[in-house]
């Protein structure tokens, strides 16, 4: 159990210490997004929701905004859990007094991963494929890519998240934040294109 946890944390590039909640943030927020966006596809309510929203682009925008807000909340909670864990363990404050930046980084990462998960659900036409893809990527694919293609390792979303949520926080959040945002926008664009081009079924997914 401990070996598995350590391996997972290593894969997420976070030290096996207090902020374990932050290490799980990409997966948790991604799952939130995948399940939230995939529900309409799974239960066949997508046609009604599209008509209610007045179009596919409006629907995608509202969905992304809602899940981003939820993901941001999850990220902020994860950041709070990391800080409280460190305080509870009576270790030195992990954020060097930059509490606001740390919370903002957590919220931003949560929002991005929620939108990423939602995009995967739309591309995969349901939550199941999205969840499987997300976990496979975080636990297997990205570590293998990092080992195989080192020059691009920094651009990978998991690595970018780790840089964003490093403890102590980096001097500037822009580096990791921009890389994560770029990946998020790329996945969101692909999902939007898929939603626009595909026919909408009127059955359960």
């Amino acid at each position, binding site marked *: 159990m401990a070996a598995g946890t350590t391996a997972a944390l290593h894969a997420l590039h976070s030290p096996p210490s207090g902020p374990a909640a932050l290490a799980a943030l990409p997966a948790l927020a991604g799952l939130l997004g995948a399940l939230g966006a995939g*529900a309409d596809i799974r*239960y*066949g*309510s997508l*046609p*009604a929701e*599209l*008509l*209610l*929203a*007045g*179009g596919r682009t*409006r629907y995608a925008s509202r969905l992304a905004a809602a899940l981003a807000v939820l993901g941001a909340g999850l990220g902020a909670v994860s950041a709070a859990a990391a800080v409280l864990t460190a305080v509870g363990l009576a270790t030195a404050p992990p954020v060097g007094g930059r509490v606001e930046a740390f919370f903002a980084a957590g919220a931003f990462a949560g929002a991005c991963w929620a939108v990423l998960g939602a995009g995967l659900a739309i591309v995969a036409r349901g939550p199941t494929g999205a969840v499987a893809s997300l976990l496979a990527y975080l636990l297997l694919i990205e570590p293998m890519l990092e080992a195989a293609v080192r020059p691009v390792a920094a651009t990978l979303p998991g690595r970018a998240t780790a840089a964003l949520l490093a403890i102590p926080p980096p001097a500037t959040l822009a580096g990791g934040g921009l890389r994560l945002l770029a990946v998020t926008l790329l996945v969101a664009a692909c999902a939007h294109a898929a939603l626009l081009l595909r*026919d*909408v079924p*009127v*059955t*359960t997914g």
Partner: protein
Amino acid sequence: MHRPDPPALPGGTVTTAAPSPTDAADSPVLALAGVRVTLGGQAILDGVSLRLRPGGWYGLLGPNGCGKTTLMRVALGLLRPAAGLVSLCGQQPPGRPGTVAASFGPRLLHPRRRAWTEVSLRVRALGGDRRAVHAAWEETGLADTRVRCGDLSLGQAQRLAVVCALAGAPRLVVLDEPTVGLDAAALPWLRERLAAFVAGGGCAWVSSHDLAEVERCADQVTVLHAGRVAYDGPVSTLTGADDALRLRSSQPDLLRTVLVEAGLPHQRYSDGSATVFGRTAVEVGRLLAARSVPLVSMYEERRSLDSSLRDLLAQPVVVPETATPGPAEPMERRTVSAVPGR
């Protein structure tokens, strides 16, 4: 817009719908022109054209697999046609939020979501207030606000789906088989609810296998057959209720002679009775009185929609001469002297 002529109906009367002087003021809520949908190289829909106007109850009929649901998906912008034009309230579908609503079945709801939440979310999203939410909830006929959508019976879920579709008074509501699962108490509710919706200027487009309900409620029906429009017009014309008079005389030979000499299109039966087409009861009554034909009975002969539909679907579908849509053609009514046997 060109609309293909339907095949000859029983009785030899061919009728195509045409714009009336008031139609210009009622621009169509939905207009399809030459819609073609293919799947794997096979045409599911081919050259389908129709118009739905505000304040109308339109039925969409046809055998299983003829493309009814596919046509509805095209109309709502859920399916991209290979060819043809689709206009929803003058715009590309689906139009502005809340303009059109649809229900494709009672089980397309989030099963773990509470029915009250489903109604509330829908009404609030359309700008409804608390009173509107309560009014919509009352229509569902459900008592327990904690019941989840997945725990509803088929009929309850169907009624909930219809209530949600009608929330916010859309301009067009599309219902695919809305009577499935409804009990004897809910059917009148659906009938009255849709009648009120239509009376308020809304347009209801309903696909159904419940022909009795369609015959009772629909202003016009579109019949799909092999991916094409086999008929598009009033129910009464399809069933022949408008212009079919069944006559019975104590002197059948005299009756036959008078009808032949007057050149009235008619069909004779082995029991001596006859059905006259294309004439009013007053006209026929005056003619028979002038020729002293004793009448035992005269009544409008109305066939059920079920039998009319079966006869229609047994005929080959007429392929339109032109593939591209053109201007609407004026109404024409042609009667033939030789009446095909029923």
